[in-house]
């Protein structure tokens, strides 16, 4: 591909791409990290085998893309332009798809998605309830673009926003456009993007930086990974536009080492953009120069915090510093730096293409646009969902997510990752936006959404998050390090039945102090999972402390397994599997568990066909 030297040349080039379409059907296979984990690579090999075969076979184009969002049913194969959606495809299905669907236009019935509620089969993606309420503005292109080919992105209208901006939009007008759009940072803070851009533009200094924060460390959150893997050019384009608005010529993408595919795809994207003259010196002959480097992180959670991230790029320990002098004035190497999250950058080209007016119509008063959530945990449809701001939690969990598996009851949803909070059933009708979530003691965070059913113990959950945060805290400031350590000690004591009534007061006290006195956002939000569970599930804490019982039957020290004599058929299935040989009894007679031997692993309960084993 040849370098493009001017804007006029670019628009000619664009037209050739949009005109290039043949009638052949296209087979699209999703192969993000989630798809690969479920065997999409084997499916791709099977398709390639057919493609390389000589002789008569149906003609079709073949495309490998990033994640399509519905990770539960990966690997997904779509047949465009009809939009047929095949799920859980195995290499064995490939021949049939080619001969039946592509050759004869017939549908392979068993590969279609079946709506678990109505039992109806869904032919296309938009028929599936999971996709029906979504608004795929940012992640939609993931389904159309092969991330390793810049041509695909151009075909989908990519870099048009950049060309539009470079045609002579003044940087101040550009910032104004982002202001009118009401774009807020998607990384967690929800800070207005335009404010950062403007202060960074006005900050003194010749050399400035724009940084893309792709250090996504929340357990169970992976929307940034999916965007980087599936559509890296949209992030580059966003950064280019931001750089133009702020007046910057250097940028960094800070991505964690745990995302090898994302790193690979971004590297390819940068290389291709450079070759095409969309990155580097004198972009499209306009005199504007900008280039991006990739900084690879070591996987510390705290490096997602902006100042720690900058320390890390500088080659120092990933330690946050006080932000009394903002990073837009003194950031990376003490120079003005504007840092935004992956998803924020991906929103920028959209705003420029469609206009701030259109964009600001989506969402709520204070929060505009869409947000991608990763819906995980005890939920039927695991995956990435992109929804307009203001949608209710109930819609996300029950309409899109398909509710809780195995007919269990919903208990809580944890939003915002380890720094967010747990919201109970009574708040399911809460509209999801930055302000509402922080009002109820949680936060938007980067968009993790972990659903829990009745078998989750909230005290145990708080313990898990405290443990995670203590592990991931940089350990620099005293409230976070010592505070978390003591919180964990106290909560652990509660889960083993050694809690005291006055502990609750002490937990509140430490949590409150940490919120005020910690250095960075990690420490200030670290007590959130604990405080929110204490606020909404106080009865559970009290049961642990006063009655020494775990209502959810999770905390091993507080539970006991028992066989219900009326129900036990004496099949001895449990006795065979018990690793401690704690179950005994005569054949066809009710068995018994020896509590002294029982290690409470729960295997017997899972095995019992009669439901005769109960936790008390």
């Amino acid at each position, binding site marked *: 591909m040849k370098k493009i030297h001017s804007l006029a040349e670019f628009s000619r080039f664009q037209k050739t791409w949009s005109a290039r379409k043949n009638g052949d059907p296209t087979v699209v296979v999703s192969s993000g990290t989630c798809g690969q984990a479920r065997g999409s690579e084997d499916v791709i090999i099977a398709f390639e085998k057919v493609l390389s075969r000589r002789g008569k076979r149906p003609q079709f184009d073949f495309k490998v893309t990033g994640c399509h969002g519905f990770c539960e049913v990966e690997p997904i194969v779509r047949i465009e332009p009809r939009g047929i959606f095949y799920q859980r495809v195995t290499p064995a299905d490939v021949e049939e798809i080619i001969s039946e669907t592509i050759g004869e236009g017939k549908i392979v019935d068993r590969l279609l998605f079946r709506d678990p509620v109505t039992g109806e089969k869904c032919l296309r993606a938009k028929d599936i309830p999971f996709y029906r309420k979504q608004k795929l503005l940012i992640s939609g292109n993931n389904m159309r673009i092969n991330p390793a080919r810049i041509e695909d992105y151009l075909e989908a209208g990519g870099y048009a926003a950049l060309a539009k901006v470079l045609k002579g939009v003044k940087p101040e007008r550009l910032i104004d456009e982002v202001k009118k759009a009401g774009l807020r940072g998607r990384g967690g803070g929800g800070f207005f993007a335009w404010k950062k851009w403007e202060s960074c533009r006005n900050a003194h200094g010749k050399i400035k930086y724009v940084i893309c924060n792709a250090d996504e460390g929340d357990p169970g959150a992976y929307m940034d990974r999916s965007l980087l893997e599936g559509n890296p050019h949209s992030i580059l384009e966003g950064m280019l536009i931001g750089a133009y608005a702020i007046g910057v010529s250097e940028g960094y993408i800070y991505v964690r080492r745990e995302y090898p595919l994302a790193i690979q795809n971004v590297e390819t994207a940068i290389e291709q953009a450079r070759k095409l003259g969309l990155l580097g010196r004198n972009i499209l002959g306009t005199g504007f120069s900008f280039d991006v480097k990739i900084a690879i992180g070591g996987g*510390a959670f*705290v490096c997602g915090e902006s100042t720690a991230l900058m320390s890390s790029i500088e080659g120092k*320990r990933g*330690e946050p*510093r*006080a932000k*009394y*002098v903002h990073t837009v004035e003194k950031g990376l190497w003490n120079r003005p730096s504007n840092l935004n999250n992956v998803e924020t950058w991906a929103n920028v080209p959209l705003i420029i293409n469609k206009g701030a007016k259109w964009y600001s119509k989506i969402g709520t008063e204070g929060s505009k646009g869409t947000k991608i959530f990763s819906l995980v945990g005890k939920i039927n449809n695991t995956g990435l969902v992109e929804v307009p701001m203001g949608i209710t939690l109930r819609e996300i969990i029950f309409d899109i997510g398909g509710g809780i598996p195995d007919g269990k009851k919903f208990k809580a949803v944890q939003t915002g990752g380890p720094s967010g909070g747990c919201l109970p059933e009574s708040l399911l009708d809460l509209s999801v936006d930055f302000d509402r979530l922080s009002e109820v003691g949680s936060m938007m965070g980067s968009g993790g959404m972990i659903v829990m059913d009745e078998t989750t113990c909230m005290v145990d959950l708080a313990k898990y998050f405290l443990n995670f945060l*203590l*592990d*991931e*805290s*940089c*350990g*620099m*400031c*005293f*409230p976070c*390090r*010592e*505070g*978390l*350590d*003591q919180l964990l*000690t106290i909560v652990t004591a509660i889960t083993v039945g050694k809690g005291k009534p006055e502990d609750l007061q*002490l937990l509140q*006290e*430490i949590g409150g*102090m940490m919120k*005020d*006195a*910690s*250095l960075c956002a990690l420490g200030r939000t670290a007590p959130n999972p604990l405080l929110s569970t204490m606020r909404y599930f106080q009865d559970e804490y009290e049961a642990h402390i006063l009655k020494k019982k775990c209502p959810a039957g999770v905390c091993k020290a507080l539970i006991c397994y028992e066989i219900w004599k009326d129900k036990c058929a004496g099949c001895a299935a449990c006795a065979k599997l018990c690793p401690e040989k704690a179950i005994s009894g005569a054949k066809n007679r009710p068995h018994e568990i020896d509590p002294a031997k029982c290690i409470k692993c729960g295997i017997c309960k899972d095995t019992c066909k009669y439901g005769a084993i109960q936790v008390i």
Partner: protein
Amino acid sequence: MLNITINGAEVKAQEGATILEVARDYGFYIPTLCYLEGHDSYGACRLCIVEIGEGSRRRVVTSCNYPVEEGLSVQTDTKKIIGHRKLLIELILSRAPNSKTLQDLASYYGVEKIRFKNKNDDCILCGKCVRMCNEQMQSGAIGFVGRGKNLKISTPFSKANEVCRNCGACMYICPMVEVQCRGPKTTGDLCNGCLRVTPTCVEVYDRQMCYVEDCGTCVRPGSKPTGGKSQKK
């Protein structure tokens, strides 16, 4: 010069100075553990927190690295700040319960018991030595290793290195390198004797008993001073 108010008093401050520097210049006491004059402020101990602003915009900041600005209103000892400091002192004390520096700080703030399990560590990870070594001595022989609970200060790979000139500046600056308090070792008790003008122990023992094995016997609830070793003499 900038005009700011500290605890209601109008004072003048040099541009670029931090709240802590200005406050100390004017004699307002703000406790610190990790602050090291003439070095980068680290902001780790958080004891120097103060409240700035008025009304709904009031917020907690660390004074050691907050640069003063025109019209700034600072409160160094509000109810919230004192409460947080007390809890912080308690938390740090649980890490190094025998440090005289921390015990004195506790006495000053009236922290009389520790509700946490003692960890009996000596280092509180204030990082003064690291900054001393890097910035003043230009050596960089020691640094932070690990993170979270496992954070420690050490030489690279915990081995002796030739960069270290054995200057001892790290020890000179360490707030924990002092003769340790031999006071109560059990969780919970703090004698708070050292800072009192007439420590209770003087009445019984005829001299202050800090640093001595029996320290703290006088204040343990329900226990009467029953002839420690020193008394027998």
